[in-house]
């Protein structure tokens, strides 16, 4: 019950982060120039064309990836799985490359759908490999996912190299929000819609997380839930990859932290997961913008370090029962 009371303050704190994020950047734009003074018009333009889209994109991507990670952990019943440890992200990248090679003129939303189709296929392959894991050793699962991601990545690199697209590929693998402008991020609203959809279906995902036998006992069609989850995860991942690139480990960090504190009843925890995901990405992005100003460090790089440290910590402090 206490968590409910805390949610409003947490929401406000995240909103404050978002506002702070609006005022961090290379171009001169402070609160006072916005209100009056010379350059006010220019400041509003920067705000509308660049800063607001960027902050919105960060929030949508962070919330979406955190929720996607949660769903994957429920479906695979494994704490270490998230889109970047299951081949999902790499498959979406391969999809992006395919679009770039075969139909570079498609509108963004179509690119996203193609990437999502690839992500869906890759994740489905991952889940079907999991069914063949002889002993459901919890650490074997992300290991296979990481390796599968590596194999898919090798394919992507091969074709990118062959067709001289390594540079372009770098752009969507780095997790960089600096190029997000008005008109270049709107596909992320799809991620928001899917996040809301995930909340609507929260109880199904919790039941699926209890395992196939429990799901069947409670009259839930496990395969349908897995299908729904896969679609949500792939679309969210693809929309993020298309707009900003890879945001590694959010889906690992946030769900695990929230689960430690509040458990896994998604009806209760999903709002927290979405909020914390957004806050984490906002913070990492600000760090990336401030540390080496005027140059920017992509948020993906910051998350890579933070996330792998968190992952190591999670693995090393693992008690035998945890899985």
């Amino acid at each position, binding site marked *: 019950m206490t968590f409910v009371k805390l949610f409003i303050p947490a929401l406000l704190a995240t909103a404050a982060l978002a506002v702070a994020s609006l005022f961090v950047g290379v171009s001169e734009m402070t609160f006072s120039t916005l209100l009056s003074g010379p350059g006010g018009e220019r400041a509003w333009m920067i705000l509308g064309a660049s800063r607001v889209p960027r902050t919105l994109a960060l929030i949508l991507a962070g919330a979406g990836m955190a929720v996607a990670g949660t769903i994957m952990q429920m479906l695979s019943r494994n704490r*270490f799985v998230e889109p970047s440890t299951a081949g999902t992200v790499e498959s979406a990248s391969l999809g992006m490359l395919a679009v770039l090679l075969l139909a570079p003129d498609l509108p963004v939303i179509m690119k996203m759908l193609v990437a999502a189709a690839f992500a869906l296929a890759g994740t489905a392959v991952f889940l079907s*490999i999991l069914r*063949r*894991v*002889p*002993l459901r*050793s919890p*650490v*074997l699962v*992300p*290991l*296979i996912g*990481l*390796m*599968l991601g*590596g*194999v898919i*990545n*090798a*394919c992507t*690199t*091969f074709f990118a*190299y*062959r067709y001289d697209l390594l540079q372009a590929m770098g752009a969507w693998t780095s997790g960089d929000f600096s190029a997000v402008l008005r008109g270049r991020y709107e596909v992320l609203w799809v991620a928001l819609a899917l996040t809301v959809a995930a909340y609507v279906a929260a109880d199904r995902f919790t039941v699926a997380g209890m395992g196939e036998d429990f799901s069947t006992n409670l009259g839930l069609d496990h395969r349908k839930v897995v299908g729904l989850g896969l679609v949500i995860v792939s679309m969210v991942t693809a929309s993020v990859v298309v707009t900003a690139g890879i945001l590694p480990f959010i889906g690992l960090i946030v769900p695990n932290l929230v689960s430690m504190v509040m458990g896994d009843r998604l009806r209760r925890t999903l709002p927290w997961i979405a909020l914390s995901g957004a806050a984490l990405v906002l913070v990492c992005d600000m760090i990336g913008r401030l*540390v*080496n100003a005027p*140059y*920017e*460090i*992509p948020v993906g*790089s*910051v998350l*890579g*370090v933070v*996330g*792998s*440290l968190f*992952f*190591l910590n999670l*693995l*090393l402090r*693992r008690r035998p029962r945890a899985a």
Partner: protein
Amino acid sequence: MQPDSLRSARRVLLIIGIVAAAAVVAFMTLGARGNWSFVLPFRGTKVLALVLVAYSIAVSTVLFQTITNNRILTPAIMGFDWLYMLLQTVLVFLLGAAATSSIDPRLMFLVEIGTMTGFSLVLYRFLFSGSIRDLHLLILIGVVFGTLFRSLAGLLQRLIDPNEFVVLQDRMFASFNAVDSNLLVISAVMVAIASIIALRIFHTFDVMALGRETAISLGVDHRRITMIVLILVTVLVSVSAALVGPVTFFGLLVANLAYIVMPTAKHRYVLPAAVLIAIICLVGGQTVLERLFAFDTALSIVVEFAGGLFFIFYLLRGHPR
């Protein structure tokens, strides 16, 4: 061991030796046009580099698997390659690109290998102190360490002035095709020294492979040998990483191929077999890709692809011990 399997081990060695030699000859001569006095030294340097890399990766992987007593862990999978890359980045970051380029690359290389050895000893102690019993957990931790090193290197590269970053990028993204010939001599010397040391303790390897308890009860100073082998492994890893950059799965592939083709587990046969197979794969693969398909640096990508699939297959097969 029966003399039969010894004889067949020698026969296999002879065959893969001939194939390896053929691969080298093919690489040197196929499609060569024009002046031999130009082609031979040019390709010769390249072949020497490839052979050095093949040797380093094969020997370091087999020895690492001997002291860790399993056939799926390799230094590359445990993140050692990326550790080397991280160290390089840290050096540029601390000293600046200008200073880094002005230092004699050979001196630099020695410093890097020294630091690398220290760090990898710490990493090894941490991972193999016996507190982590689950092999899969151990691999996963190693893989995530690799990710951490790579991410840290990536982050540091972003912190470096973009102009200086270009200098670093040249050094970081070496490939099978663009081997740094300046490093060849010093690499060859390092590999030679490592090999001489390895030869002096060669007789302990077969005993070490039996496991810690058995090795100790047979009178081998397990701790000391482990340390020496680990230092040798680190040197060899540094050599290959410096020459061609990180290659995650190559060692795993060649070591396991060697275990498969050799009817015996004795290091006298497995080690040369692994080296020869590595040479066949690298030199032969490069010949095929370069001469037949006109691809340049795609070999490492192909190796990652095949190696990753092999690794997943190996994991799924069940008991990787």
